């Protein structure tokens, strides 16, 4: 293929490449304020066990609360959080409540959860044990609604 021809192909492919990863519908450009995390406050220090509380207005959905991990993509179900080699996938009800708890995932209709334990995140004893809580909205079938995400960073004091 000659240089000019190659350039033409490159220009033709460019919109295809760009188009395949972009969309124009259903995107949120303005912040979703329907959920407000009340506790812990930003960069607050908590001790185990602790409670995560939030207020919600005009929300008709369930809440998925995650610690230190990325939620599923919009329109994906909870099952997409389960690794492909996990035994849980063999069961039609996967992921069940036990699997979710074991993996620090909390599914609730209410506006608070109690956290008994969290894996330590710090890499050395001088560092602070920082964590991040993320809340996303799910429908009745466990499918993520929209791309709204509510995040809060906090520190766990482990008394050592």
């Amino acid at each position, binding site marked *: 293929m000659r240089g000019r021809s190659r350039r033409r192909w490159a220009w033709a492919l460019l919109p295809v490449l*760009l188009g395949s990863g*972009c969309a124009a519908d259903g*995107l949120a450009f303005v912040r979703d304020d329907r959920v407000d995390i009340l506790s812990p406050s930003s960069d607050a220090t908590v001790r185990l066990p602790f409670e995560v509380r939030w207020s919600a207005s005009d929300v008709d959905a369930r809440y998925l609360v995650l610690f230190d991990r990325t939620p599923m993509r919009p329109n994906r179900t909870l099952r997409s959080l389960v690794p492909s080699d996990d035994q849980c996938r063999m069961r039609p009800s996967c992921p069940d409540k036990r699997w979710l708890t074991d993996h620090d995932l909390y599914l609730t209709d209410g506006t608070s959860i109690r956290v008994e334990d969290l894996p330590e995140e710090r890499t050395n004893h*001088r560092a602070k044990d*920082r964590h991040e809580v*993320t809340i996303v909205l799910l429908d009745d079938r466990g499918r993520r609604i929209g791309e709204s995400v509510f995040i809060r960073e906090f*520190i766990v004091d482990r008394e050592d």
Partner: protein
Amino acid sequence: MANAEAPIEEVRSKAVDVEAVADAAERLRAASREAIGVTGDAEVHSLRATLRAANVGLYPVVALGSLVAVDQLSTQGLTIMGPEISGSLGIPRGSYALVLLLKTVVIALVSLPLAAAVQRRARRALVCIATALAWTVLTALSGFVVSVWGLLVLSLGAGAATASTRSVHEPLLLDSYPAEARVRIMSVYRGFDRVGEIVGPLLVGACTALLGLTWRGVFLAMGVTSLLATVVGSRLRDPGFGRWDTDRVRRIVRADAGQDEQLAEDDVQLGFFEIARRVMLIPTVRRVLAASAVVGMFLAPFFTYLAFFLQERWGMGPGARALFSAGTPVFGMVALRIFSRRGEELFRRDPAELLRLSGTLMAAGVVTIALGLFTPLFAPMVFLFGSGIAMLIVIQPAMGLPMYSIVPAHMRAHLAALQSIFIFGVGGAAGLLLLGGIDRRFGTAGAILSMAVPGLASGLILRRAASTVNTDLDHMLDSVVEEEEVKALLAKGTRLPMLSCRNIDFSYGQLQVLFGVDFTVDDGEMVALLGTNGAGKSTVLRVISGLGLPSRGTVRFRGADITFLEAERRVGLGIAQVPGGKAVFGPMRVVDNLRAIGYTHGRDRKAVEAGIEASFDAFPRLAERRNQLASTLSGGEQQMLGLATAFIIRPRLLLIDELSLGLAPIVVGELLEMVRQINRQGTSIVLVEQSVNVALSVVDHAYFMEKGEVRFDGAAADLLDRPDLLRSVFLEGASQGLATASSR
């Protein structure tokens, strides 16, 4: 060929002695240094007066500054809004970090092809505007991304577009302003860069906190901001390569030669890799690039670890860290303001002082930052970090101007691109790899402290680079002066020698083997290059044929500078070499050897076949062995096959290395007759020989080399009257003969 008919000495007398060019260069060097701003004094006029005198405005620096202020908006958005983007799109953190890493790599790598795009035509302004438009569109489009794939494509695209700020901006800026204002202009430009570092986080903060926008809205706002900067920069125009430096030097030379009009540009232009290789051959550049790689080891991971340090040691959250990031560039702006005029003075007095200052600032900067690590109070910590970072910021213009001054204007984009690769590619990657382990063992503060070591090392390298910068500056000016002198001579109708090597220095690694070699060959001439074993004869041939590149000096072929041209391209110009010893492909048949050489004719099969037949006519013994493997030929036959090259590619200049080595006298006689025949057909010949008798029996002119220097240049007959020179050859031959006899 007409010249082949003329007596050689007559031709030589008509040709211009290259020494005349050298004398003129010496006289013009001082004027050239002054023309590019190295005056030896420290008298600096105000920036306004300097620009007014040169009749240039602030627009180019404002335009390029506006662009560099917004070029990192996309990266800043991706970094600051990382958790939100990752959470919103469901992209794992690891994948997200990989996107950012790839973007950094792309920025470093794409700067090289961008340099290649502007090497022949001065269209840097166009590239700046087009790439700014590209990253504006791609940044805005990032607000519409719905998958990691889209994020990757847009990020890499925006990264590739912003590479122009690394390779094209500064070379364009230098050509837009007179030498007397460049340090200050580069400082202003770097000031805009710092403004960008402040504006980015503030824009994100304003969009999210005040306007309530999501990361998508932030990217749209960034796109609009970039568009405004692009509009500001849209009237940029390229002033041409070297308007305020090499062009000034050329004007001085032309005025000296009594010529006002622009001479025809018929040089042999270097390609991309030839330019990159030529730039890397400059000692100061090599040292600055080495220092840049070491700086990269410190700089690239520093800002990553700084964020963790602030979080761990001072409990600063994302907002406070963003504020810290936005605040530290203020220190840099103050430092640039203080430095700019002082830097201008230093450059005028001596560019080496500016490089020494860069080294000192580097060392002082890392020490100041290290002190900041152990400061128990917050305010002094901010001051020490800010001051340390400010010193590192000042290094950019302080190191940049001497570095750019020693390379020709159209090669500066390549240098900028190479530096970017050394800082972010080589140094950055090495730093991140090395510091991971240190961080795990000694914590973030330990990692930052360990980075002080490469920081101090790069400071020392920079100070060492100062020792060569003036020599390299003079070499660059000399080459420009010589080029203009040659053009002036050509314009006057003076005929130049076919080949002239001037002041050639050559080293194998650290071992210098050629010292200021001057060597000339004219049309149709046959010259011998004689000398003892290890005198540097074969190395001179390698420099002429392009197999070796000199560290100093020029090689001109028919007036054009071919010093850094690839060997293949020199074959196309008509320079061929028959290497010493076995100049054949042993496992191939004789006829295939000739066909392989015939590839220089491209697809012209007829010409190749005609050349092969001519070779067989000249060497009937080769015709008899046409289907024999070359490795099965005798030594003399292999030399014949090597010489047959001349019948295939019909060079204008044939370089023959050690024709008689290990051959019987009768075979040597046959070969010499063929050499005479090739010469009679118009090909100039350089014959490298250890055997004085063999060489002087065929040539009219001879050079004698000893320990890398030319000790004799004159008529072949005169060399026989120099027993002081020939004794060493004869003694060496005699001692070899004795050694051979005793071994028997």
